[in-house]
Each structure stands twice: as structure tokens, then as C-alpha cells.
């Protein structure tokens, strides 16, 4: 990776800043998994890594290689796109599984499922 030394100073600073911010954001997201108290709160922690962290690190990569190869580079945008599109699936699945479990165990503080009128009468 010796060609990284070809990076001009301004670009090196920008890439470094973006990378550090991205890594810090991802770290905070992971920290959230430890610190937040219940499952639904912890659900929010990884999203900060998949949105902020991914975007910043991809921007750093785009800038670094665009300056090094002196041409526009956009294919990192695909990473951002696919991460953004696929995360909701996992997240909604986990959230619904937790919701199902908590409703089944009749935990407090979990919203009840609204039963349609036809089902209500048979209960």
C-alpha cells in the first residue's frame, strides 16, 4: 500500500477525518448494544452503524481512491444502497419476533395486538 503516500495532504486529512468519524460512529453503535437497557432500545443501536458508519466509511473510500486514481469513483454508493435497502428487513423481522414473544408472555409495556371484531367474539 505504498502508493497511499501519493495522497496529497488535504485529501489525507479529509479521508482520515471521514474514516475516524465513521469508525467512531460504528463503535458508538456497538457500544449502544451494551449500554441500552431493553431489546427494543438495543434495536436502534446497530442502525447508527449501518447508516452513519457505512456512509462515512464509503465516502472516505470514494475520496481516497478517486484522488489516487484521479477519476470519479462511485461504486461504493452500491454498498450504501444495498445496506440501506436490506437492513429494514432484518430489523423488522427481529422487532416482530420480539413483539410476538413479549405479547405471548404478556409482558407489561408492550402494545397489544388489535384483534379484528370477528376474532374478538370467539375469544
Amino acid at each position: 500500500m505504498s502508493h497511499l503516500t501519493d495522497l496529497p495532504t488535504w485529501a489525507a486529512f479529509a479521508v482520515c477525518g471521514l474514516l475516524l468519524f465513521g469508525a467512531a460512529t460504528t463503535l458508538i453503535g456497538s457500544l449502544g448494544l451494551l449500554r441500552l437497557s431493553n431489546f427494543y432500545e438495543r434495536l436502534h443501536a446497530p442502525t447508527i452503524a449501518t447508516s452513519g458508519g457505512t456512509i462515512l466509511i464509503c465516502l472516505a473510500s470514494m475520496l481516497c481512491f478517486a484522488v489516487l486514481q484521479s477519476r470519479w469513483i462511485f461504486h461504493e454508493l452500491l454498498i450504501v444502497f444495498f445496506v440501506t435497502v436490506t437492513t429494514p428487513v432484518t430489523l423488522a423481522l427481529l422487532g416482530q419476533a420480539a413483539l410476538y414473544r413479549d405479547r405471548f408472555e404478556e409482558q407489561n409495556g408492550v402494545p397489544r395486538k388489535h384483534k379484528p371484531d370477528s376474532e374478538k367474539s370467539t375469544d
Partner: protein
Amino acid sequence: MRTWFPYPLLSLTLLVMWLLLNQSLAPGSILIGLVLGMVLGWVTLKLHPARSHLHRIGRAARFALEVIADIIRSNIAVASIILRADRVPAIAGFLTVDLDLEDENALALLACIMTATPGTAWLEYDRRRKTLLFHVLDLQNEEVWRATIKRYEAALKEIFHD
């Protein structure tokens, strides 16, 4: 045109994706990208996905900028909540909002937006009652969150109306 490209937007996206992956604008890449878009468009035809039409591209672009601003803001907000979590416990809670979105693709896009902005998590959409149950990490002000979702809904409705 419709017979060759049953889903023009999908084919266009596939072409752009192909060009980005190959990192080239050579005629060969464009040709393969077009063929790929065409063939996968035909395959998608068999899957019968919900069709929706995009309107008002300018409005969509403005909405995208709004969402990006929201993403940045909520990233900072959630990061500070996590860092303060052991001193000030987060006030999290569930919220229910009535949605008036019919279009499945608009709903999917709303789910993506809500996941991309940390602090809101999509939990359950009740198709019959048209209500969305979601979880908010920072429930200081319920009305602000409701208003945010309503704002997204209004914009998506404008963009996706038939």
C-alpha cells in the same frame, strides 16, 4: 418499448448498477447492461410485483435532501443518547400512527427511511387498520415524531400517487 423493457425504472437501475460495478462506460459494458436489464425485467414480470409510478422528480429530489438532513441529525442525536445512557436513561417508547399509504413500494421506501434514520424502528404495519407501530428511542415529544412520519407520508403520497 414496453415489451422490451416491462419495468423501465428497474432496467435503468440495473444498467446503472452494472456500469458502476464494472466502473466503465465502454460500449460493451453498456450493451451487456442493457441485455441484463431487459432479461431481468422479463423475469420480474413473472413475479408480478406491485407497480407504482413515480411522479414529480423535483419533489422526490427535495424529499431525498430532507431525508439526508434527517439522517445526519438523528445519527448525532442517537449517538449522544448512547454516550449519555448510563447517566440519563433513554426515554423510549412505542408509537402508533395511522398511515394512508396504499402503495406497497411507498411503504417499503418508508421502512427504509425509518431504518436509515436511527432512533426510529419500524415494528409492525397493520394492513387492515392501516396503522404503523414503531419504536422511538428518544420519546421526549410524541407529537414531533408523529409529525415527522406524517411529513414523510405526505411527501411519499405526492411522489407515488397514481
